[in-house]
């Protein structure tokens, strides 16, 4: 079943598909990132892929282009699946957002953005999802060391807290950090 969809895709977009395989029973097509939105729209509307099951990226450090976006599509009505991949270079890590097609893409792309630093064109809100806003770097990139520590953040000043704590008027000793805390960053 999935094989037929893959063949249809190859026939419909011969220029967009870079390569394809069905190793281990997972039908897969690697497409050019420029045609992602067009191919996905066609798959959703013409091939009944109603669901974007999963979206992630893989960092193939040392290869060029470095990142690979991986999309798992699922059709409820036809009960088949397809994996679409697209390579994204390190120098310009941009790919189209799939929010116009599937609402579920929103959070997946936010997570992918913070973890890999890939920007999704057309995404309205790329705030970090699982990390905090001050987090530096993209932790799932292969060149992000496993044991890197993030600097300790100063506490918010009382006037910037929306909900003041008891004792804010009497002293501010909680805000000042020792000078070396940024080097060690012990939590």
């Amino acid at each position, binding site marked *: 079943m999935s094989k037929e969809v893959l063949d249809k895709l190859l026939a419909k977009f011969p220029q967009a598909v870079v390569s394809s395989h069905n190793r*281990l029973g997972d039908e897969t097509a690697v497409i050019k990132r420029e045609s992602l939105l067009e191919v996905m729209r066609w798959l959703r509307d013409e091939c009944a892929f109603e669901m974007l099951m999963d979206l992630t990226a893989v960092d193939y450090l040392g290869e060029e282009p470095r990142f690979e976006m991986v999309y798992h599509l699922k059709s409820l009505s036809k009960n088949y699946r397809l994996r679409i991949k697209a390579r994204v270079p390190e120098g310009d890590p941009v790919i189209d957002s799939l929010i116009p097609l599937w609402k579920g893409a929103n959070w997946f792309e936010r997570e992918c953005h913070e973890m890999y630093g890939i920007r999704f064109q057309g995404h309205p809100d790329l705030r970090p999802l*699982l990390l905090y806003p001050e987090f530096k770097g993209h932790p799932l990139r292969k060149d992000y060391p496993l044991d890197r520590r993030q600097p300790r953040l100063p506490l918010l000043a009382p006037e910037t807290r929306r909900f003041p704590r008891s004792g804010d008027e009497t002293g501010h000793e909680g805000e000042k950090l020792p000078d070396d805390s940024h080097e060690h960053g012990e939590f």
Partner: protein
Amino acid sequence: MPDTAKDLHTEVMDLVLGPSHPATHGTIRMTVKLDGETIVDIDVEPGYLHRGFEKECEDHKWNQCVIYTDRLNYVSPIINNVGFAMAVEKLCGIGDQIPLRGQYLRVILSEMSRITDHLTCLAAVTMELGAFTAFLYFVKAREWFYELIEGVCGARLTTSWTRVGGVRGDLHDGFADKAKVALSKTREVLQECDRLFTKNRIFMDRTIDIGVISREDAISYGMTGPWLRSTGVAYDVRKSHPYLVYGELNFEIPVGTNGDNYDRYLVRMAEMEQSCRIIEQALAKLPGGPVSIPDHRYTYPDKQLVYTNIEALINQFKLVYEEIRPPKGEAYAYVEGGNGELGFYVVSSGGNKPWKCRVHPPCFPIMAALGPVLKGYMLADIIPTFGSVNMIGGEMDR
């Protein structure tokens, strides 16, 4: 009164719920904009339990990652273990060689985990609506299954039970009898709770037509599990893409109609009965034989042989020191978790550690939709709706 009410100065109020709040189970922060008690806007912020699951997996050998999968959905850890093992087995090309007994054991313990998952969810929902006694009833039933699981795995929650190529150990003596007792007692508890809630005016008022999601939205958000089934879509991985021995067992997929909290409660209650049926059938059909594949590139040889046979000693040595090395490639395997489709996307570069180990957590798409779903409801409706998601911080934040 209307004239004076018009002159009253009103404004939209910000309210922060969480990250630690007694009425939510799980650390999550919701910033709610309220007009009176009506929710105007809500921003859901997860991530408080992020501990770098994927990054840690990339630094550990394949079988060592099983331990991390326990900590994903820690109320049904065995389903996670099974899902991960199936992904790696698919990658190695040995997915179809798992002995039948091993497959049945995986099914039996997965279904027990599904029951504990649903029991936990319903216990929390009912308790947060004020029914503390029912919480104790549900958790009492959960304990019987945890005891059975503890007997097999040695732990209630941190099971780490599967291995690539099979499972760690066989059932203990008397497991089947104890399981039958647990099932019949659980059915009594379920009937008792059914009498307590299904026609309970307070419970119905708090859940019917609350947290409604349309079928189109549920599909567009990529939801699976009870949330999708409560809208009437009978999608269950165990039926749509049968894995292990689910194809040989009889069970039904309960569905709802309205997509509200009450339907999700009904779906979960009905699914536990189906899981009981599956366990009974699987126990009756349970064949003998080994539980793991005898290929010692993947599984340890018998300990007796290791001490007496040089081949087995070498096998054990190589497996301990080098671990399994799946061929270069990628695989996506998926199982039906307590909250929906639990997928593992694993990439191997040919080494003894995963190049990438991605989890598709079933509650992630549901949490993504929680904000839009809750708009327009009252503040108090957050609690049963969030409860019916059964968000597990471990798999949501990874």
